[in-house]
């Protein structure tokens, strides 16, 4: 499976620089795992808190490699006909009826062969990714939302990059796509799935990286404001909250402050705009209280 000549990147640092070029700031672990996934031809299972750029990673890698992004959004009740393929029942019916009307001496076996051909196949994201001629990046989003049984649908694709269709045979991939699976960790994924993937946990970025992200994504922000913002966010994240602020919320907050023309955050302006950063009333109250205290020693 691992054809080294087909590899897209030379080294982890090439991945990192490339991603930086498309405005995604990767750290060592992200770049390293993406590099390995390409070399080993394995899917990446990306886990981590919401809003840390899991989905964005897949999009950015697609942009970087110039590949088409095929996305499968998972939800409860997702099944084969939505994820893999489906026979176009109505078209098949029409085909049979057309035969009857024409009264031509077609054998049933001919018709049968005909209506189970690719013409009557509706491809869904997974099959589409497998059959694509051009390079693709397959994103299977929020895979923890499907039931454990449905996970099994993915296994054949993830390990062998092929789909078996009983009426047609096995469709093997023309090229090995880069596959990203994201999970918000609302349930434990099956061992079988985890075993087939490389595991990548994306956590909240450290302060230097987050600052860089703010500077890159929010145009016109000053260095000192960005520094202040990420420091306050770090302080807030260290509290015990129902939902800690994510990177995207940090960015929203930075944009808000910029729009309001605030170039120096003090306790007042922070408190007034906290609702951008935090989504629960109890969290907002807690953070507001904490921010106006100076952080007692031995906290």
């Amino acid at each position, binding site marked *: 499976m*691992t054809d080294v000549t087909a590899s897209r990147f030379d*080294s*982890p640092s090439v991945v990192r620089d490339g991603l930086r070029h498309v405005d995604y700031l990767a750290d*060592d*672990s992200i770049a*390293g*795992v993406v*590099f*390995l996934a390409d*070399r*080993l031809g*394995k899917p*990446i*299972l990306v*886990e*981590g808190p919401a809003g840390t750029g899991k989905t964005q990673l897949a999009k950015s890698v697609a942009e970087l490699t110039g590949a088409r992004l095929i996305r499968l959004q998972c939800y*409860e009740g997702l099944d084969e006909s939505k994820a893999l393929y489906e026979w176009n029942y109505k078209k098949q019916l029409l085909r049979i009826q057309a035969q009857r009307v024409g009264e031509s001496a077609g054998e049933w076996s001919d018709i049968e062969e005909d209506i189970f051909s690719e013409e009557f196949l509706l491809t869904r994201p997974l099959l589409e990714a497998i059959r694509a001629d051009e390079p693709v990046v397959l994103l299977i989003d929020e895979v923890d939302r499907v*039931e454990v049984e449905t996970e099994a649908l993915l296994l054949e694709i993830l390990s062998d990059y092929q789909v078996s269709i009983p009426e047609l045979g096995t469709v093997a991939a023309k090229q090995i796509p880069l596959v990203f699976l994201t999970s918000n*960790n*609302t*349930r*434990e994924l099956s*061992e079988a799935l*985890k*075993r087939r*993937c*490389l*595991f*990548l*946990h994306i*956590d909240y970025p450290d*302060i230097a990286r987050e600052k860089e992200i703010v500077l890159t994504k929010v145009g016109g922000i000053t260095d000192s404001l960005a520094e*202040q913002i990420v*420091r*306050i966010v*770090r*302080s807030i994240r*260290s509290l*015990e909250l*129902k939902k800690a602020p994510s990177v995207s919320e940090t960015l929203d907050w930075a944009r808000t402050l910029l729009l309001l023309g605030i170039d120096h*955050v*003090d*306790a007042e302006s*922070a408190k007034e705009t906290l609702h951008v950063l935090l989504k*629960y009333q*109890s969290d907002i109250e*807690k953070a507001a209280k*904490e*921010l*106006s*205290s*100076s*952080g007692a*020693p031995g906290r």
Partner: protein
Amino acid sequence: MSDDLTALPAGFDGGMLETLAGFVTELRRAGIPVSLTENLDAMEAIRHVPLEDRSAFKYALAATMVKNNAHWKAFETVFEVYFSFRGSDYRLREEEGDGDVEAMLEELIGAREGEGGSGEGLSAEELAEMLYRALMDGNDALLRALARAAVTRYAGMEPGRPVGGTYYLYRTLRQLDLDGVLERMMAEAHAQVPSDLTELEERLARDEYESRLDALRREIESEIRRRLVADRGAEAVARAVRKPLPEDIDFMHASRDELVALRKAIAPLTRKLAVRLARKRRHGRKGPLDFRSTVRHSLSTGGVPADPQFRYPRPSKPEIMVIADISGSVASFARFTLQMVYAISSQFSRVRSFVFIDGIDEVTDYFKGTDDIGHAIHRINTEADVIWVDGHSDYGHAFETYWERWGKEISGKTTVLLLGDARNNYHASQSWVVAEMAKKARHVYWLNPEPRSYWDTGDSIVGQYAAHCDSAHECRNLKQLERFVEHLG
């Protein structure tokens, strides 16, 4: 392992292979499940990363073998023990600094290699002063070198002692007095600005300095580990520093750090549990036929109802009564159980909670109107009226009082959870109360945080109570607790 040898690239000698084998074995001993395929994947993966790039090497191993973020810390510890001498990290940094730093470093290294480790190159005051400046400037390279010098000077490491280094860490940190350093840094931060720091600024500065001090602490710890490994070999050190994974930490004997780890681990765990229970409820069985939906779906098959649709079932939710012993030894167990039960309280029609030591009090109201379970637990510990005579557990009296005051509120829909180690200080057991409960309630369960082999030894009378319960469970760690609560929902 030996059959993988052919798959390894040049540059991997037998020694490296042996280290890797030991590394994987240690991961498994630490409780991280590494399957054979994952092991092979790891071997394949490290062929593709440059060996001298330590962080790439680390992430290659992690991505292939550690598939659960809760295990990351354990992985990191083992990695550090096994691969601390390899890679560029250790020496390369020294080339980065400017001339000034380099000169100082040379002096320091000289001190380190000086016999006896007394650090002749620097006096204690000079060391403290340099450390302070490096912290103030956030100079990582210098900090690293200073951490090394500090360990040499203060840890007083004795070769061959089978320890995990906690003691050495303590000795080093005591000499450095980091709390004092923090105060001094804050004072300087104050002095740097003309006007007073606002409280927010002060807080931010403190957070920043604390994180630098944390980095220094970690640096010292890993320096100590490095030396331990050099002294006694990776395997011995790994054994000494092995810690249980968060889900395996024993409630009764958790240290302060472990309790913090537990508190962090419980949130994602309960979230998963709630989702799982909600799903189970919805998919456990099918509800009655949904006629309208069936007809609508039949339109796509020409009016033939080929695909019958069912309503979602709405099974009744149980009502939970938690009766928990909160005396010293089992307090943290009660805390985590209450936290878990309340976190998934949407899965129950009602949750009521009672706590006791020798008196008993209802604390349901503490959980109402607050989102913050930690806050409620704090109120339990400070406000609940649970002491009757002397503040030593008396299950008999607590149960009797409970039965008098709330016994009639147990109904056929109620599930009663009794939490405690049943160490009754040789008081009367009054186990008839549990027998009466079992008659009225749907289920009565006993959860005991002690290992099963300790039950009914000394003053433990859990057997007398358990005889009347549906079942009694050993519940020593999050894993066991989670399993039980899932069974409950």
